[in-house]
């Protein structure tokens, strides 16, 4: 063992440590604080959350309250959770339907237009989400352009699920296109060519060679889109403002600063975390596998 090697061995930990400590303190430890709040008590007169740090004294009232009101006759949280699932799934599928052909075209076929197209596709990425929503608020207002172009007067911005879903699609499509493009761009063209040489038709080459290779890319892209959507509340707030389109993000946002309900917001945070944990782990594993393969 030379001295260089030893220096080398310490270099990794030394460089990584600040980042690891940061993640420990500001990413993992806060999750414990959430637990302490959810299973904590309440200030007697303001009913704000008072965290209980020792698990031995944890109080499950808030968690039970949330769980008991998800299903059954008093299950008033249930519809919002179901709505979230429906919105997120529908919006993600629509995103995929829109994003896949575009990413495929730009990555594999666009030729010399590729740079320009890519720049334009990325543009929404740099435009603030709020501004893009604001743009639609203006367009869909009662005296907005949409109502003036289309026949009939429609109250677009008053509690319409389809408007919220379209808002989500509009907002999150760029997050789908970029990873899809990146993945498709890396697919080896030679395999498709080989399939064609072996007599596969264009369509069957696409479905039997390209598609299977795309699957992990598609899954990862869908995950990257629907995970942030799960926590969205502002799209519904801006494009509807009605409880009829509340998502789980709205439940969290409404309760987090309401007296006596902060712990419930924490409980919803834990629920969303649990639901998204599996897809997140799947994503982490697939990415780690990619890294190992490089």
């Amino acid at each position, binding site marked *: 063992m030379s001295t260089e090697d030893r220096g080398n061995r310490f270099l990794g930990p030394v460089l990584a440590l600040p980042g690891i400590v940061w993640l420990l303190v500001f*990413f993992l430890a806060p999750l414990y604080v959430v637990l302490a709040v959810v299973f904590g008590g309440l200030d007697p007169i303001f009913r704000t959350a008072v965290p209980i740090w020792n698990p031995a004294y944890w109080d499950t009232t808030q968690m039970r309250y949330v769980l008991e009101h998800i299903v059954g006759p008093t299950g008033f949280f249930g519809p919002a959770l179901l709505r979230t699932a429906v919105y997120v799934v529908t919006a993600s599928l629509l995103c995929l339907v829109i994003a896949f052909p575009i990413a495929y075209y730009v990555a594999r076929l666009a030729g010399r237009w590729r740079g320009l197209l890519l720049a334009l596709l990325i543009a929404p990425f740099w435009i603030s989400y*709020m501004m893009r929503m604001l743009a639609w608020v203006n367009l869909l207002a009662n005296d907005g352009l949409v109502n003036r172009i289309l026949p009939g007067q429609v109250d677009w911005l008053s509690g319409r699920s389809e408007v919220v879903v379209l808002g989500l699609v509009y907002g999150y499509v760029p997050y789908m296109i970029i990873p899809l493009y990146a993945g498709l761009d890396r697919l080896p063209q030679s395999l498709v060519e080989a399939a064609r040489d072996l007599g596969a038709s264009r369509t069957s080459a696409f479905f039997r060679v390209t598609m299977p290779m795309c699957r992990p890319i598609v899954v990862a892209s869908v995950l990257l889109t629907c995970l942030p959507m799960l926590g969205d509340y502002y799209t519904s*707030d801006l494009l509807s403002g009605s409880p009829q389109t509340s998502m789980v993000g709205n439940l969290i946002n409404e309760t987090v600063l309401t007296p006596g309900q902060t712990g419930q917001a924490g409980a919803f945070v834990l629920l969303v975390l649990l639901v998204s944990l599996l897809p997140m782990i799947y994503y982490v594993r697939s990415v*780690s596998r990619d*890294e190992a393969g490089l």
Partner: protein
Amino acid sequence: MSGRRTGWWRDPWRKPRILVAITVGYLLWSLLPVLVAVLFSFNDGKSRTVWQGFSMRWYWGDPYRSVWYDDSLHAALVQTLRLGIITTLITVPLGVALAIGLDRWHGRLPSGANAALLLSFVIPEILLAVALLFVVTNVALPIALGTSAQVVGLVTYQIAYPAVLVRARLATIGTQYEEAAMDLGASPMQAQRRVILPMLMPAIVASAVLVFADVIDDFVIVRYLSGDSSTEPTSVKIYNTARAAPTPALNALATLMLVTAMLAVVLGFAIYRWIGRRSGHDGGIGSFTGEA
């Protein structure tokens, strides 16, 4: 290449007319609403929907409500830029060091850290925001709602960008350069600084631009962790005002943000190309977008 020379309509390999239509249609759909919003920032009237003639009133003409004169609007712009710059300055070194460190340290702790890093990348933002809000309001740390809490939240949420980009670049560099440098007598630290770091520059610049652009667009974390109104950045201002009584000054504010983001990206891309050419790694715009 000869296949590409023939017109696409005769090329048996593709049938992209529908794809072209979808792509162009999508681009119109994605960009036109924003262009309309930008257009209305120049409206002479108070309406954001009815065009009443061109004016710069909402930028500086109006003595109370234009971006130039309304303190709350330019306070928002200043806070946005402040968060963008501070967060980028902390995130990028932290993330780059973490990436290099994790790349050469194997074991349970580093692979756990790697998993946590990737989790922080995909976790729904509101979860992190609420968790940090609970921390700031319940634990007596020297972090208060406002800029310090916002920076902590943003760095945590963004640290994966530089880390992931740099690791991808490290994987393509391999170990031979570093070994060569050390064979020539460089210490491990010198080898990092003199050899590896310059080769990583394109990835570092790209991640800095990504972090900056992402931070100035951030909404959830900065809203939950904001203190008084001077720490509410543009996105929060847009949200609050859009739900109350917006004037075209809001469109003007959003337009200025858009211009800032575009400038940052163009500038970043120029630097990226320049460094890339010098270090012999000529990445296209694709590798600039954080596709890793």
